């Protein structure tokens, strides 16, 4: 079965650079979520989109932005990178209906290292 695809798997950037992470949700899933997981930490919610509109916002820094495109893929843009942005970034997707929502399925993550 198709899963959530994230690219790239690994990314190394220097301080003050920018980075773009991409996420391709499971086909027919209408909601995309971004999470950040620091070393030894639990995943922290950043932002989510439902049908290409932002639906929830978590602890996303102002330096970060995200959007969901017409083909439902999503991109997380990160500017003025700081050492503390080094983390594993997960994208997840789910399907919603009036009766029940599907569980969140996560991609394999993008490991960002800022030097």
């Amino acid at each position, binding site marked *: 079965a198709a899963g959530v695809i994230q690219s790239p798997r690994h990314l190394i950037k220097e301080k003050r650079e920018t980075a773009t992470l991409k996420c391709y949700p499971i086909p027919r899933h209408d*909601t995309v*979520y971004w999470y950040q997981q620091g070393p030894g930490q*639990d995943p922290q919610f950043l932002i*989510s989109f439902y049908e290409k509109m932002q*639906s*929830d916002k978590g602890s996303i820094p102002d330096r970060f932005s995200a959007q969901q495109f017409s083909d439902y893929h999503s991109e997380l843009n990160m500017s003025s990178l700081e050492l503390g942005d080094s983390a594993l970034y997960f994208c997840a997707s789910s399907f*919603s209906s009036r009766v029940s*929502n599907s569980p*969140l399925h996560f991609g*394999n993550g993008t490991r960002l290292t800022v030097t």
Partner: protein
Amino acid sequence: AQKVTQAQTEISVVEKEDVTLDCVYETRDTTYYLFWYKQPPSGELVFLIRRNSFDEQNEISGRYSWNFQKSTRSFNFTITASQVVDSAVYFCALSDSLRNSGNTPLVFGKGTRLSVIA
């Protein structure tokens, strides 16, 4: 406010032992979902189970079983006859309310690192 507490930071067991991972949650909603995810050393987050607040039936899947007790707000996870491949960080998570505009985001516990020793 939602909160998930996994009091056990690390657990170490010998292979073939049974182990229970505890999860206690807080929410003001009457409709909510509880989840368990596994994160092996390779880093991915693997969905294990979802349980909604109206279904208190316990569930068994192979060596895995889950005990949902609404009265004590707990959703514990037991691995029977543990194996080395079970070594991972296990996260309990909560998503409250059901709405048409997508799932509400998951709130994770801090995770429990399970080490199974051969």
